[in-house]
């Protein structure tokens, strides 16, 4: 177990304590700035009210809700459990497959049905492709936050290939509505397996190229190491999850710790931050965890493609889904972390209550703890490294 250090906030001067020999206080006025809702580096419509003393951030107050689209209210008002899936798509719009799966899995557990093995493999392949696509956006935009523009477009170039795969599977490039309760909407197209294998072969060297350009760049390391350190106890206390929590050195991945799908049938490793460039849980650790997870995802995809069985892609489910009255909380590992769906059924054909526990919501709520005392440029790095998608924060 790796011990985390206390957050180094010592470089914050305490202006109130500094007094000249004539007794004059050296305290300067603090300035309140609104970062967002329209700001290039808040990754959407996040508004951060920041109190700054010069360039040093004294306090951060996040304001969210600008992208609130009433997911839970919509879900309650649907006439059918399946109809919620397009709304789940739109929660985290860069990782729709994972959202679909999370919701579908929750309903399946509520119905107590098992999906055919082919479906499990298709879902794992889709979810891991989506994880790579989502991480590529996270890493690329983080590069922009650091002032490096080129990695961003390299990431998008590679993501485009994944979207092409999705497009040939289900016709859509962003919001798929592909994973349904009891299966997937239709089977993999011809040649998909081949093309996905091509992609894996293409993508592996690209990760190295990306690392050479950005990850191990001296300036980049200087900007990210020892910045925004999230100590492990605070990370757990704020229920951070995903790469954010693993970056702090906590070996916690729901794909392994709360198994679903066929993740146990393939070989892969949980990646954690080790503080290679600075302190455990700094921005660089969170970054490298995402990079290494992409490698692991490629591993998973390759094995799943090799093992995928033939068979049906829809379980035998009734035309109108009508679970028994009851409730279930199912959590899956989305690219951002623990995506939970708490569904209460009252025995009718539509859910009585759906609560979506989004990982970005919890990850963002810790920001005032780790951003205090950093500089404005560091705040941008921290927000970028938490990898929030506002569609998911606000739902």
């Amino acid at each position, binding site marked *: 177990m790796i011990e985390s250090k206390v957050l180094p906030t010592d470089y914050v001067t305490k202006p109130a304590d500094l007094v000249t020999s004539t007794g004059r206080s050296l305290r300067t006025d603090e300035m309140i700035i609104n970062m967002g809702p329209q700001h290039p580096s808040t990754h959407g419509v996040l508004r951060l009210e920041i109190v700054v003393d010069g360039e040093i951030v004294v306090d951060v107050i996040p304001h969210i809700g600008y992208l609130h689209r009433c997911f839970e209210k919509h879900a309650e008002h649907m006439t059918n459990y399946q109809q919620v899936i397009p709304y789940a798509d739109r929660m985290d719009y860069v990782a729709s497959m994972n959202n679909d799966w999370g919701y579908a899995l929750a309903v399946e557990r509520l119905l107590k049905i098992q999906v055919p093995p082919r479906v499990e493999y298709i879902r794992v392949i889709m979810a891991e492709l989506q994880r790579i696509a989502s991480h590529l956006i996270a890493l690329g935009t983080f590069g922009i936050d650091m*002032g490096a523009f*080129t990695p961003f477009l390299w990431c998008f170039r590679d993501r485009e290939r994944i979207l092409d795969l999705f497009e040939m599977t289900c016709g859509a490039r962003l919001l798929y509505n592909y994973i349904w309760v009891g299966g997937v909407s239709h089977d993999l197209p011809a040649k998909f397996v081949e093309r996905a294998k091509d992609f894996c072969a293409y993508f592996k060297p690209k990760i190295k190229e990306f690392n050479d350009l950005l990850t191990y760049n001296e300036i980049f390391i200087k900007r990210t190491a020892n910045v925004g350190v999230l100590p492990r106890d605070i990370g757990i206390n704020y229920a951070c999850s995903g790469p954010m929590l693993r970056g702090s050195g906590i070996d916690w991945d729901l794909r392994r710790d709360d198994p679903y799908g066929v993740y146990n049938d393939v070989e892969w490793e949980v990646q954690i931050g080790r503080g290679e460039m600075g302190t455990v849980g700094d921005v660089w650790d969170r970054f490298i965890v995402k990079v290494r997870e992409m490698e692991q995802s490629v591993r998973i995809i390759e094995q799943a493609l090799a093992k995928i069985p033939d068979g049906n892609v829809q379980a035998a489910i009734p035309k109108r889904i009508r679970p028994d009255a009851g409730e279930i909380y199912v959590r899956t590992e989305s690219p951002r972390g623990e995506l939970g769906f708490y569904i209460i059924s009252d025995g009718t054909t539509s859910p009585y209550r759906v609560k979506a526990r989004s990982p970005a919501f919890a990850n963002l709520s810790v920001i005032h703890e780790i951003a205090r005392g950093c500089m*404005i440029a560091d705040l941008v790095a921290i927000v970028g490294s938490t990898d929030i998608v506002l569609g998911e924060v606000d739902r």
Partner: protein
Amino acid sequence: MEQLFQSLAGNPIVVSVLLALPPLIFILLYALVTVYLEMKIAAHMQDRVAYMRTGWHGVLQPVADMLKLIQKEDIIPSSGDKILFILAPYLIFMGTYAGFAAIPFSPAYVGSNVNLGVFYIVAATSIVVVGLLMSGWASNNKWSLLGSMRSAAQLVSYELPTILAILVAVMLTGSLNLQEVIQAQAGGFWNWTVFGGGSVSVVQKIFLLPFTITSFLILFTASLAEVNRTPFDLPEAESELVQGYNTEYSGMKFAIFYLSEYANMFLVSAVATCLFLGGWQSPFGEALNGPFWGVFWLVLKGMGFVVLQIWIRWTLPRLRVDQLMYTSWKVLTPMLFVCIFAVGFILVL
């Protein structure tokens, strides 16, 4: 050239105006070319193709951009300081343009052959800081203010390594007049200041080499900071400060900011070229030398550095404010003190 204009026009005021025109025309043409170059280089580094529709491979795009910027509505923040707001971009452009006056484009043409040419350029470009502060303050926008404060701090800090690096070249060539500095580097590229200069013995040259090359690299680094290019583009760090000091500007005023930024890129490159790389001197001794070849060589060398700046910009991330200051005061400046001391010591021996 001055004599030529003198005989053509006769009136000294007309002569001054005529002498001032070539740099302005050059800046405008150069900006169009560089905007296009930057977009194309950036695009190809990023696996894209950039503009393809306006003319052959989009060559007319900079013209279209310029026309668009001229047509755009000019917005002045109602709560800002109107006079300063309007004045700031022109002041910045003035500082840059004034710097061009002392750049010798060829043996026959220099806008103003002042004896303290190098010193004059450093002084004239410092006006830019005032313009930046004015634009940040007058915008009445906190991001602009932060950006202009950053840029003022940055320019002042990086002025020091720039001047110290210039000092190394001046020590080796023995003049502050840029024409004379260039003439001292005549006779092929091995006589350029970056390789020890033309007036020293071979043994001295060998000892000078590490220090002159270091000074030159530092001058180049500091000039990146002077023109706010990555990795020192903090004043207009898009992801942090929206757009820095020119957030509130639009239309023609924004175009002028843009123009002076690009002009500044060439100015610092030209100064570095004149001081360390022989300015308009041909690299092959007397071959291909002369008034017209001189323009060619200076522009070629200058553009080389502009392209290098573009390359760096699209490769590196940017530094943080404290790291920026650290680089200037604790790395570049002490290294230059060592260089100056060593160069002086070797010259005395």
